[in-house]
């Protein structure tokens, strides 16, 4: 088969790059492109152009779209009309996870406990300069005086160690 001329090649190049030519058509065109720099440049130009059409990112279909459209169609909604507002397909009864609540309450309780202990400590503990050690004998003497004040007067003991009781006589 003879090589196609440049005009014929130019007409075949788009189909060749689009994968639409049979091998019988493509083989002589390939040979022509190898031999003809001008046609090769034209083919490269079309290849460059096609590179602007990249595969786009996949489209996310909105959740529940099919059910919504089918419901609208059977409800008599016309094309161009907005879909009626409907409740979500599944009953919205979100199960509440108790863990965040428990954690929150625990942290609040821990904070309160800490603050309370601080307040107690500040209220009852003397400051550093007030921490003066009293001499021990004085404290003991004070205790003795207190005991003496609270204890009734002692009854003399007899020789056997028995105390006389009022009215025994």
């Amino acid at each position, binding site marked *: 088969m003879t090589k196609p001329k440049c005009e014929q090649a130019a007409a075949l190049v788009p189909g060749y790059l689009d994968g639409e030519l049979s091998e019988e058509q493509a083989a002589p065109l390939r040979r022509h492109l190898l031999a003809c720099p001008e046609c090769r440049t034209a083919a490269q130009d079309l290849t460059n152009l096609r590179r602007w*059409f*990249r595969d786009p990112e996949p489209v996310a279909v909105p959740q529940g779209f099919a059910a919504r459209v089918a419901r609208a169609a059977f409800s008599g909604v016309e094309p161009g009309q907005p879909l009626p507002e409907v409740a979500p397909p599944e009953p919205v009864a979100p199960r509440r996870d108790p863990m965040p609540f428990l954690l929150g309450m625990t942290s609040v309780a821990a904070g309160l406990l800490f603050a309370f202990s601080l307040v107690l400590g500040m209220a009852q503990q003397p400051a550093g300069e007030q921490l003066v050690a009293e001499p021990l004998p004085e404290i003991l003497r004070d205790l003795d005086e207190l005991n003496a004040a609270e204890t009734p007067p002692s009854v003399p003991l007899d020789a056997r160690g028995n105390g006389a009781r009022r009215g025994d006589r």
Partner: protein
Amino acid sequence: MALSLMQPQASNDSDLVRETLAGSQLSFQLLVERYQGRLFALARNYSRNAAEVEDIVQDTFLKAFRRLETFQHQSSFSTWLQRIAINTALDLHKRRGRSPVQAVEDPEILSDASPGNFDRRVMAPDARLEQEEIAEVTQQVLEELPDIFRTVLVLREFEDRAYQEIADLLGVSIGTVESRLFRARARFKDALLRLFPEFDPQWNGGESQ
């Protein structure tokens, strides 16, 4: 009717269409589920607005439902549905005053593929351009094209459809697809170099030589 719904994967389109016509909402829902991804992908080539894309797909299915009795089971339900989607997308453009539809045999369009268009070269997208930047440039250029050209480019370049499938979708011959694609590419290159002259290999930064 409900029996076929027990095995939705085994149900073919014709079964689901028949069941829908017999009153099965679930069968229609299965048809929507089967084709919604493809239609969203197709529709987003006509709008960058997510709400508009959803409107196109939603209207496509509602129109299909209303015309379901006219569907001829000899042809593919997929092709029939996508044809409705393309027309719906083009209607939206027309309503919003964008890129008005021009007649296929408009002599101005036919004469558009002037030889001058093919002498100019175009660069491939720079490797440093992000995917989103390339898509943005391409969409801007596509917006400049009449809808018949935009559609044939979308089907061929983004959807990777064969010439025969494009011909079936648009209801034209393969020869018409080829010539329309040829002119569409010329128009695309022209608009790309006009809007973004930096992608012309001969571009010198806008300074006169």
